[in-house]
C-alpha cells in the first residue's frame, strides 16, 4: 500500500432542513486501499457518498481528488472526473444485454460515436468471465449479485481508479457476498481504490484495510483494521448512550394476540409463530429474507397460498388491509414516503387517515373531533410542529414517524406491526420511538418490530424471530438474544434444532 492520498475529504458540512446530516467531516483515502466508511443508518454515510458523487451539493468544505479540488456539479461530471459508484439501487437498463450496458456506460455520448455492443474492455471481460456472466444475457435475467458485478465491470472498463460501493451486500446472499469480496481482492491487486460503505461490521472486518466511522453526521475517527477490535468500532458507531437508548423490558402476559400457522405466500414459506399481548416481538433478517412480505400478507396486502392466521383465538381470512384494520391490526410500513405518508396533505389528515370512521358522524367528518384527537397525539408523542394544519412534508423524519404511529394508535390496535420503525431518523427521535413502542406494549398491545438493525433488535425485543430465505431460522428467547446467535440465525446457520421452533410456535 502506497501512502499517496487519492481522495481527501475536507471539512464537509451538509444540512437538510432541520437536521445536520454532516458536521465538519474530514478524512483521507489512500491510493489502493479498501477503505470502509461505517456508521448506523442515518449517520451520514449516504449523504457523504452523494456529496462525493455530486448528487447533492455540499454546504461547505471541499473534496480533493488526486491533488485537485473536485468541482463536479452533476453526477455525470463526477463520473467523468473518475469517481465511480455502485449504488444500493442498481442503475442498469433491464432490457439491454450486459455488454450493451457496459459499453453504453463507458462510451461518453459527447463523442457522438455509435456504441459498439460487442466491444468490451479486457479487464471487464475477464471479470465477467470468472463469474460466468455471458455478455449477451439481458440484465433482467440476472440476479442482484450478478448485476452488481456488471456494474463493477462497467466501472473497470471506464478505467476507473476509485470505486465506491454503497451498502453493496444489502440484498446479496452469502455466496454472492463471497463472490463480491473475491472481486474486491482482485480490484485491490490492480491498484483500484475501493471505498466500502456499510454498517455491517463482520463484512467490513473481512475486507477493509482501514475503517472510518461516522456517527450522527460527525467524523469519529479512522483506524487500521489489523489492530482494532470490533467492539471499538461498535462503540464509535453507537456512542456511549446506548444504555438508556432502550427502555427496560417488562415481558409479556401469556395472552395470545395473533397466531400464525404454517403460513406460505409470495416470498415466505411455512412460517409459524405466536404473538403475545404486551410483548415486542423482533423480526430480524437480511433484506429480502421475507419479513416485510410475510407481514404485508398477514395485513391483507399480499398473497397467502397456505396456512392459517388466528386472531384472538379465531381463524380469520384477512383479505385486504381494510379487514385487517377492523381486526385491530395496524401496520407502519418501512418506506415512509412511498406507502406511509400522504405528503401533500396536512398533519390532521395524515393522523386520522386510518380512523376516518371513528372521527366522523354517520355521514360527515367531524372536524373538531379530528382536530382534538390530533392535538392529543401531538402532545402525547411530543411531535414538534408549527401547526397541525401544516403539510406533513414540513416535518422531520422522526416527527413524521411519530405522526404515523399516532395514526395507528387512533384505531386502538391490538396488534401493531412496525417495519423498520427508525429508518432514516436521528438518534434522539429513535430513542423516543423506542420508548413509545415499549409504552404501547405495556398498554397490552402486541408489537411486532421488523428491523435490520442489530442493536435495535437486541435492545428492544422480548423475543426475536429470525428469518432467512423466507423461512423462520430461529426463535431466540432469554439469554439466546445475543449478537452471536442473532448474526448466525440471520444468515441461516442453525444453532438450534428446528424442533425448538415448532415448540415455541405452540
Amino acid at each position, binding site marked *: 500500500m502506497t501512502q499517496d492520498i487519492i481522495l481527501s475529504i475536507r471539512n464537509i458540512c451538509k444540512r437538510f432542513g432541520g437536521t445536520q446530516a454532516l458536521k465538519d467531516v474530514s478524512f483521507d483515502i489512500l491510493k489502493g486501499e479498501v477503505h470502509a466508511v461505517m456508521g448506523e443508518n442515518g449517520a451520514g454515510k449516504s449523504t457523504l457518498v452523494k456529496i462525493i458523487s455530486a448528487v447533492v451539493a455540499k454546504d461547505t468544505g471541499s473534496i480533493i481528488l488526486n491533488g485537485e479540488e473536485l468541482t463536479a456539479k452533476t453526477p455525470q461530471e463526477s463520473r467523468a472526473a473518475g469517481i465511480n459508484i455502485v449504488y444500493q439501487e442498481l442503475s442498469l437498463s433491464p432490457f439491454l444485454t450486459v455488454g450493451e450496458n457496459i459499453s453504453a456506460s463507458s462510451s461518453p455520448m459527447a463523442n457522438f460515436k455509435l456504441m459498439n455492443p460487442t466491444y468490451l474492455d479486457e479487464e471487464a471481460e475477464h471479470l465477467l468471465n470468472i463469474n460466468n456472466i455471458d455478455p449477451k444475457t439481458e440484465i433482467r435475467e440476472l440476479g442482484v449479485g450478478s448485476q452488481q458485478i456488471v456494474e463493477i465491470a462497467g466501472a473497470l472498463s471506464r478505467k476507473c481508479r476509485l470505486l465506491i460501493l454503497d451498502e453493496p451486500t444489502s440484498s446479496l446472499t452469502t455466496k454472492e457476498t463471497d463472490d463480491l469480496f473475491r472481486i474486491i481482492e482482485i480490484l485491490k491487486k490492480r491498484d483500484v481504490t475501493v471505498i466500502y460503505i456499510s454498517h455491517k461490521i463482520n463484512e467490513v472486518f473481512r475486507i477493509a484495510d482501514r475503517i472510518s466511522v461516522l456517527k450522527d453526521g460527525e467524523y469519529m475517527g479512522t483506524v487500521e483494521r489489523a489492530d482494532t477490535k470490533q467492539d471499538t468500532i461498535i462503540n464509535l458507531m453507537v456512542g456511549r448512550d446506548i444504555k438508556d437508548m432502550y427502555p427496560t423490558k417488562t415481558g409479556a402476559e401469556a395472552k395470545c394476540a395473533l397466531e400464525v400457522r404454517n403460513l406460505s405466500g409470495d416470498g415466505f414459506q411455512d412460517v409459524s409463530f405466536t404473538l403475545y399481548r404486551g410483548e415486542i416481538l423482533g423480526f430480524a433478517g437480511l433484506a429480502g429474507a421475507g419479513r416485510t412480505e410475510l407481514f404485508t400478507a398477514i395485513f391483507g396486502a399480499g398473497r397467502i397460498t397456505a396456512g392459517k392466521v388466528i386472531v384472538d383465538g379465531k381463524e380469520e381470512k384477512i383479505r*385486504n388491509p*381494510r379487514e385487517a384494520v377492523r381486526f385491530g391490526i395496524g401496520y407502519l410500513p418501512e418506506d415512509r414516503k*412511498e*406507502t406511509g405518508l*400522504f405528503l*401533500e*396533505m396536512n398533519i390532521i389528515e395524515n393522523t386520522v387517515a386510518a380512523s376516518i370512521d371513528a372521527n366522523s358522524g354517520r*355521514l360527515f367528518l367531524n372536524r373538531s373531533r379530528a382536530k382534538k384527537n390530533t392535538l392529543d397525539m401531538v402532545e402525547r408523542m411530543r411531535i414538534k410542529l408549527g401547526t397541525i394544519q401544516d403539510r406533513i412534508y414540513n416535518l422531520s423524519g422522526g416527527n413524521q414517524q411519530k405522526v404515523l404511529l399516532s395514526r395507528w394508535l387512533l384505531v386502538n390496535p391490538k396488534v401493531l406491526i412496525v417495519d423498520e420503525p427508525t429508518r432514516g431518523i436521528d438518534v434522539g427521535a429513535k430513542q423516543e420511538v423506542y420508548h413509545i413502542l415499549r409504552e404501547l406494549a405495556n398498554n397490552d398491545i402486541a408489537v411486532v418490530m421488523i428491523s435490520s438493525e442489530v442493536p435495535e433488535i437486541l435492545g428492544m425485543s422480548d423475543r426475536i424471530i429470525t428469518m432467512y430465505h423466507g423461512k423462520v431460522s430461529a426463535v431466540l428467547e432469554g439469554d439466546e438474544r445475543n449478537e452471536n446467535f442473532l448474526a448466525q440465525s440471520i444468515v441461516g446457520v442453525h444453532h438450534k434444532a428446528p424442533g425448538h421452533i415448532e415448540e415455541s410456535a405452540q
Partner: protein
Amino acid sequence: MGANLVVERKRDWLSMLNNLFRKIFQRRESFIFILIIAMMIFLSYKSPAFLSYKNFMALVSNEAIKGFVLTGVLLLLITRDFDLSIGSGMALVGVVMAQIIHQTGNLGLGLLCGLLAGLVVGFINGVLVTKLKLASFIATLGSMYMARSLCNIISVGKGVPVENQAIITFLNSYFLGFPVAFLVMLFFGIIMSVLLGRSKHFRRLYYTGVNEKGAMMVGISTSKLRLLMFSFSGLMMAVAGIAYTGMLRSAVPTAFTGLEMKLIAMAVIGGSSLKGGQGSVLGALLGLILVTLIGNAMTIIGISPQWEGAILGTILIAAAILDIFVQKKVE
C-alpha cells in the same frame, strides 16, 4: 378586567375575520370568481344583449348539462384517473336512446337503455383500469374509439331524430323563471359540493389520489373506489347525453368530439390537478362558467371563434403555472 375581556373579544373577532379573508383569498375559487364577475361586468357593458334574459338563460341551460359530466371528471381527477371516452360515450348514450325510441316508441325503454349504455362504458373503463391495471389513458382511449364507432354503427352514420314530445318539452321547460336543467344542476351541484367537501366517504377519494398505496395500507378499498368513480362518471355521461339529445331533438353520432379534454381543462382551471387529490365541485363549476363566458365574450366582442383554443390553452397553462407557484410558496 371586564374591559380587557371586551377588548380581547374584539381582537379575537377581528383576527377571525382576518383569518377568514385570508382563507378565502388563498383559494383558487375566489380568484376565478373575481375573474368571472369582472368578465360579466365587462360583457354587459360591451353589449347590453349579454345580460338579456333570453341570451343568458339559453347559455345557462346549455352549459348546466355539462356540469353533470364535469362532476364525474372531477371525481376521477381527484382519485388520479381520467376518462377520455366521455365525449363519445355521451354520443353513444344519445344514439342508443334515440334509436330505441325511434324503433319502439317507448320513451321509458329508451331512457333506461341510454342510462345503461353510459354506465356500461364507465364500468368497463373502471374494470380495465382497476382490475386489469391498464393505464387510464390507454383504457379510456380504447373505449373512446369503440364508443364512437358503435355510435356510427347504431345510427348508420346519420343523425337520429327524437320524436317524443314529452321529453323535449320537459327538458326545455322553465320553472320559477329558470330552465329546469339549470335548477336540477344547481341542486345536484350543491349536494355534491357538500358531500365531497365534508363526507367521510368522499374524503377517501382524496387519500386515494394523493397516495394510492398509502391509502390502501390504511384500510381504504382504493380499487373499489376507483371502479365506483369510473361508473359514476359513466352515469353522469348518460345523464348529460340524454339531456342534450332531448334538448337538441336528435342524436348525432359525431357529437361531443373532444369534449372530455375541455372538461379536464375546466376542472384544472378550477383547481384540480392530474396529480390527484385536489379539486372541489365549486372550483370545477366556476371553471366551467369562466370558459363558457370566454366563448360568449368572443362572439360579443367579435373575435373569430378560431381564437378560442388559443385563449383556452393560455388560461389552462396559466392556471397550471399558478399552481406550481402556490406549491413552491407552501414549500
